């Protein structure tokens, strides 16, 4: 390099462009495996799903027919789909605020505490590390109408027993409770990292400036400084709770009377239960649209926070 820069421009030019081309070629060769994987594993399946949603393909069938928007027209009149969509939205609206607020509360308490921090952190994080399918079985026993721990506790407090998973008014909220239990730990850990990154100087400046009451300090320093972490946690929780599936599949199978029918479970039923792959693909596209909107919101928020650093 140092030798060529000393050469006259006329000679340098062709040699430089050959070199640049060689470098570009090497770059493509080296990144080819990653590009192939990206398309093969992520983008092509998504595209295939999108294309399938315009067909009447049955899972395992040798032929398929292009039916345009028929699947979507069918969706618009499908009561199960609308029930499933509204259940999913309700589930997200319960799980996201509850798990984020409780996660924030836990993070603030752990951060303010002087002893046992590692213990509490690990304890709250345990559900994140556990397999939800296995834990769902444990919850099934906990929620059992006659011998379940929860009903025993409720009765001891003087309330009447509930049939949590069989009562159409309660089943979705019982699942949401499990969802909160599971999501809280991850939210707490992410917010704890956010809290730790707030410079101590700011709290000291606030103390001298007079913003030293717990609530004022929280509003003046903690919450705004936590903004980027908080918006990240909100979006991640929303996406993750949109994907609720395991607990539904293990505990309620969408019942009782479609009370816990959620998008991914409906999609699974259509695609792999009734083998209507094209219809299942259409539900997946609707699901992806929701996730896409959330991702765009997240990108927009991230952009807005750029001036923080």
């Amino acid at each position, binding site marked *: 390099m140092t030798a060529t820069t000393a050469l006259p421009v006329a000679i340098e030019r062709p040699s430089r462009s050959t070199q640049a081309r060689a470098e570009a070629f090497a770059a493509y060769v080296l990144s080819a495996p990653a590009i192939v994987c990206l398309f093969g594993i992520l983008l092509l399946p998504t595209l295939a799903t999108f294309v399938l949603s315009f067909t009447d393909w049955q899972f395992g069938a040798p032929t398929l027919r292009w039916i345009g928007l028929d699947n979507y027209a069918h969706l618009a009149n499908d009561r199960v789909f609308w029930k499933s969509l509204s259940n999913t939205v309700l589930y997200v609206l319960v799980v996201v605020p509850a798990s984020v607020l409780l996660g924030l509360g836990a993070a603030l308490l752990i951060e303010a505490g002087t002893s046992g921090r590692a213990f509490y952190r690990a304890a709250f994080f345990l559900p994140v590390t556990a397999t939800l399918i296995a834990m769902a079985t444990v919850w099934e026993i906990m929620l059992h109408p006659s011998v379940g721990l929860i009903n025993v506790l409720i009765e001891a407090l003087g309330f009447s027993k509930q049939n949590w998973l069989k009562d159409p008014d309660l089943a979705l909220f019982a699942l949401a409770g499990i969802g909160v239990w599971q999501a809280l730990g991850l939210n707490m850990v992410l917010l704890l990292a956010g809290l730790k990154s707030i*410079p101590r100087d700011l709290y000291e400046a*606030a103390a001298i*400036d007079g913003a*030293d009451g717990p609530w004022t300090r929280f509003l003046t320093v903690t919450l705004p400084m936590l903004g980027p972490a908080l918006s990240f946690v909100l979006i991640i929780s929303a996406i993750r709770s949109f994907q609720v599936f395991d607990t539904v599949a293990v505990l309620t199978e969408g019942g009782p009377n479609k009370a816990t029918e959620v998008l991914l479970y409906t999609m699974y039923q259509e695609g792999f239960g009734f083998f209507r792959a094209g219809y299942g693909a259409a539900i997946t596209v609707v699901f992806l649209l929701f996730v896409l909107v959330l991702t765009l919101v997240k990108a927009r928020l991230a952009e807005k926070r750029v001036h923080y650093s």
Partner: protein
Amino acid sequence: MSGVSIRGVTKAFGQTRVLHGVSLDVGPREFLTLLGPSGCGKSTLLRIIAGLEQADEGSIALGGQRVDSLLPRQRDVAMVFQSYALYPYMTVAENIGLPLLMRRTRPWQRLPLIRRLHPQSRAASGSIESDVRRAAAALQIESYLDRKPAQLSGGQRQRVALARAMVRDPRVFLMDEPLSNLDAKLRVAARAEIADLHRRAGVAFIYVTHDQAEAMTMSDRVALMMGGEILQIAPPGQIYEDPADLRVAEFIGSPKINTLAGVVRTDGGIDVPGGVLSGTPGLSQGDAVSVAFRPEHLQVEPDNGASGVLRGIVRHLENLGSDFYLYIEPSGGGERLIARTTPDIGQSVALGAPLVLRPAPGRVLLFDRVGRRIRSRP
């Protein structure tokens, strides 16, 4: 009435004792600098005055009032942090106005809608705005009021931090190395600005730094701290000319003061490696002493065989344009000595040239075995 009065303050973090009984009085309009190497406890002392740390023992009084049990907010002090500690999500105006907002409004008055609709709250916001403008004008940052700190340069951020400190007319300004994040040129300009701010504010300033140039140029008095103690408190000129302790003499002054280990002779002179220097009356024979003299007080001349007190060889030359430093290896061994001369004299000296060295009479400082100054008794 004294501005700040510190009595017997001690502080330990776990097993580490950081302050060993510090006492200090700062006048109501005085600019006092706490100067010392990192880890000497100067920042801890400042934070104790601010109320951000609690002293283990001792007391702090501001304007004659004991403040030991008061929160930082109640002490009526302003502090400028090394990192500036500006709130990154607020505009410059909001940053400067926050101390006023917290003092002049109640929490419910800060709610967005009420701030606009409630007449009293609106009046408060108006008075805050005009005070913010006044502080910003004093520091020439009016045109940045709507920006966020991330959009400002280091020097501008530092001014915002100063404006936030001065906006509510505190009774004491505390500054924790406020210039150390600026580049060298800006730092020199900012020194003059802070000194000017002090003159206009007319209140006590306590300024923490490890930079002796900042201490010497801005302060009314300098308190030199080392190892959790104040070694000497004196005006800049005096602390340079008349240090009370060898550690003070060695910390202040650049390049460092020259020192030679010596032993007092029977005739009152002092044996140093490679020669004899004249002592002062009152020394007892056989005492170990340190002989120290500033680089500008070491006179050099070509070694022409005359009977000089000390001899040495020039090992290194530095021309700074205004000054010329000669690094000389003394013939008797020991640390290199430094002589400060004019470039005219310096350029006439060749590397490796033998020189005769004469500490200027009356400019030699003597320190005893533990580093205490031995003053000549008249």
